[in-house]
């Protein structure tokens, strides 16, 4: 599987994502600068966590206007898989590649801790190696991860099996509506999620629950 990681000014999980990708796939991903006009031909594009443009104005807002995002969008339309983690998820909603918005955490504070998640959809290239309903633990680290969308959109997301990760009951760290932690686009090739799977592929760091996500991609995107 060939992959690329987009680097925005003040992305800060770009290296983490690259290390996890290399560890899981055996290949170094391409690092793509936000001002580049195109992403190389790859099977997976990762928009990493961080504070692109300082998270000023709104998280992901300025990054969504980056030059490279036009190509990311075009490639996604052609079916290339896109994974937005944390800040990357915020960029995807700001680009309207995913519906809804991520607003300030209900507790108003940045929150960094491991959270329990449920894998609520396994019919996807990102989660096929998980069991339906499986409980996993990924860390979150964000100040604005409170997922919001109108009722109609939410019903659609749920009806179409596009809510892939939910916070386990009682473990919602940010007030996300319907406990939503990660969603797919209509074509199911774009996933955005707030928790960090790339921080749980190495047992030294407190867990390996994120591995199956990368294993799913490797299997789905040969």
């Amino acid at each position, binding site marked *: 599987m060939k992959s690329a990681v987009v680097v925005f000014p003040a992305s800060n999980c770009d290296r983490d994502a690259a290390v996890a990708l290399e560890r899981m796939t055996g290949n170094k991903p391409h690092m793509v600068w936000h001002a580049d006009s195109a992403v190389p031909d790859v099977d997976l594009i990762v928009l990493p966590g961080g504070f692109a443009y300082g998270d000023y*104005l*709104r998280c992901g*807002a300025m990054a969504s*206007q980056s030059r490279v995002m036009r190509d990311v969008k075009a490639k996604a339309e052609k079916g290339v898989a896109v994974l937005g983690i944390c800040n990357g998820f915020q960029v995807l909603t*700001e680009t309207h590649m995913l519906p809804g918005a991520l*607003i*300030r955490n*209900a*507790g108003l504070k940045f929150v960094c801790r491991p959270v329990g998640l449920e894998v609520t959809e396994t019919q996807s290239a990102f989660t096929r190696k998980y069991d339906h309903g499986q409980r996993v633990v990924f860390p979150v680290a964000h100040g604005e991860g*409170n997922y919001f969308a109108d009722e109609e959109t939410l019903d659609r997301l749920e009806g179409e099996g596009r809510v892939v990760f939910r916070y386990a009951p009682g473990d919602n760290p940010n007030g996300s509506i319907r406990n939503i932690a990660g969603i797919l686009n209509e074509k199911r090739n774009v996933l955005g999620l707030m928790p960090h799977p790339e921080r749980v592929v190495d047992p030294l760091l407190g867990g390996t629950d994120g591995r199956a996500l990368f294993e799913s991609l490797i299997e789905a995107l040969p």
Partner: protein
Amino acid sequence: MKARVFVTLKNGVLDPQGKAIGHALQGLGFDGVGEVRQGKVIDLELAERDAAKARACLTEMCEKLLANTIIEKYEIELKG
């Protein structure tokens, strides 16, 4: 020309910050405070001198960047 843009949350969108401010005000003993909502105000200096053109340009800025129209609405105020 100077312009001021207000970006506020649409009705129905949860505003945790506004809610917290309301709470805190009550906690400080300010009674009779109803709903509180927080938004952004962006002050800009523009080279443009024509009001209509400036307004059109600001609208485009709002749509493209300054507001996320899924959750936010905006108002534009020109200040001569």
